[in-house]
């Protein structure tokens, strides 16, 4: 599975916001083994290149940057931010966020599809942050997206996979589209569960950045993603309602009066 022709060796994508310091961020990225990191571009700092110092630090980590349009509420805002990001980070990759509601940071899926179409037409490789809605997913693919990133739970909530049914349905419905669970992951077990569902990668930020020891948590996530992926490939057993003894009874010694 590749993402617009790029095949990362790690299926863990990491956000770069909210760390105690750039040094801690660097340690966490190294410990995670992530090769793809997201960076949000505040629009106000784009023109003046005022965030240069921080961006230099990210670039020096030798990872692939996936700029995002975090905090954008309209199509136009998202498109402008994406264009700025392309110039600053010299990449046509863009994680597309169009926020529809401030308390849940839920995507505005109508604006998302529209922005995805505009950006795809102007050559961007779009990674859309979306919900678990299959019809929206279909429209995003029609708009030119070749990757889908449904949420696990609201951004920063750490609630895990809120709607496993929807995520499973999306995997089944789009067997050949690279799928990434983006947002809501709080624990390594959530990431492992996403990978067990057959997702191709997970993207998270707060769970690592706000941990007491971000580097250690990043390593834990790396292991969980590996474990979940390996489990998926190993073809897990089907769950059953009734017990089935794991020790065969044939040949068991017969005790008693006989």
């Amino acid at each position, binding site marked *: 599975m590749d993402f617009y022709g790029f095949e990362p060796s790690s299926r863990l994508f990491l956000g770069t916001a909210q760390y105690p310091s750039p*040094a801690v961020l660097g340690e966490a990225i190294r410990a995670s083994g992530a090769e793809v990191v997201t960076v949000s571009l505040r629009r106000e*700092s784009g023109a003046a290149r005022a965030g240069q*110092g921080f961006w230099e630090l990210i670039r020096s980590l030798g990872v692939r940057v996936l700029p995002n349009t975090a905090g954008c509420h309209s199509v136009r805002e998202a498109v402008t931010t994406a264009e700025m990001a392309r110039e600053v980070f010299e990449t046509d990759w863009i994680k597309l966020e169009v926020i529809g509601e401030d308390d849940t940071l839920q995507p505005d899926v109508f604006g998302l599809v529209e922005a995805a179409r505009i950006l795809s037409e102007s050559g961007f490789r779009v990674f859309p942050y979306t919900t678990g809605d299959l019809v929206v997913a279909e429209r995003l693919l029609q708009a030119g997206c070749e990757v889908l990133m449904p949420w696990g739970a609201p951004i920063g909530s750490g609630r895990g996979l809120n709607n496993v049914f929807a995520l499973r349905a999306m995997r089944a419905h789009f067997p050949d589209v690279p799928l990434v669970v983006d947002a809501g992951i709080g624990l390594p077990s959530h990431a492992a569960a996403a990978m067990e569902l057959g997702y191709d990668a997970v993207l998270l930020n707060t769970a690592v950045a706000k941990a007491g020891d971000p580097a250690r948590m990043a390593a834990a996530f790396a292991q969980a993603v590996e474990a979940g992926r390996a489990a998926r490939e190993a073809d897990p057993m089907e769950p059953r309602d009734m017990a089935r003894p794991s020790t065969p009874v044939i040949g068991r010694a017969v005790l008693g009066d006989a």
Partner: protein
Amino acid sequence: MTSVAVIGAGVAGLTVASVLAERGAAVSVVDRSPGLGPDQCSWYAGGMLAPWCERENAEAEVVALGMGAADFWAARVPGVVRRGSLVIAPARDSGELRRFARRTENYDWLDREGIDELEPALEGRFQRALLFREEAHLDPRRALSALVGSLEAAGVEVRYGTEAVPDAEWTVDCRGLAAMDRLPELRGVKGEMLYIRSPEVALRRTVRLIHPRIPIYLVPRGDGVYMLGATTIENDERRRITARSMVELLSAVYALHPAFGEAEVVEIGTDARPAFPDNLPRLVRDGRRLHVNGLYRHGFLLAPAMAVRAADIVFGEGTAP
């Protein structure tokens, strides 16, 4: 007598100059700005002397270096308020308050009665809080001005509006972000803050409101005036506050107490803090030039310990790491 030229009259430079002068060096201070004021980023500092709270989002070294700051300042400048700091969260973010408690130490849990007794202005509004009793705050502008006064009284010349560094055996470079020409790892981290006047709400100590997106603090400056801070944005732009930042700061303080909705906005301030990649301060020695820099969000908290270390090097009792 050891002679030392200090470049930069922000909190780092003035603190270094004070410690050196106290220990008998012949000190002079130069600063390129026209005077003590908005050209130094210390001008916009909160002035919190809160090492234990800072641990929530900073390395343990910040606690170790900052523990003595309140004593240092109380011995040298007027207006150090030692009533602790109060950390509160709205009910729906009580999990964030527990996380804050797990990451820090040296506090007591307060219940609603405890909060109301300590800060009657907040009566009935919050159920749980953390009180860091040993923490303090000061007014940075008053403190800097007092330091300049006592330096001058001790015969130390503080010259503004010049970049001409006097001849001296040692140079201590405390230029903050301007020292990027010699310290390429330095970067600016933008901070935005407001001064508001709200005589209706009488808070007696620093109050921090935890919020997952917009954590704020409010430092009383007396007469109903508060410093409301502060954003932390990864860019080095110095002179522009955005509507978004202002809206976020003000809506958070409104959540602390609705009466702040009537507050007068007295001043809007913004500058960039000098920081190294680990957000910890550094002493960097280059021959007889010594840099004290990277105080980041902790200028008044960490300057005293850094000044003592700088003086130890000048007097041959310490080494730069």
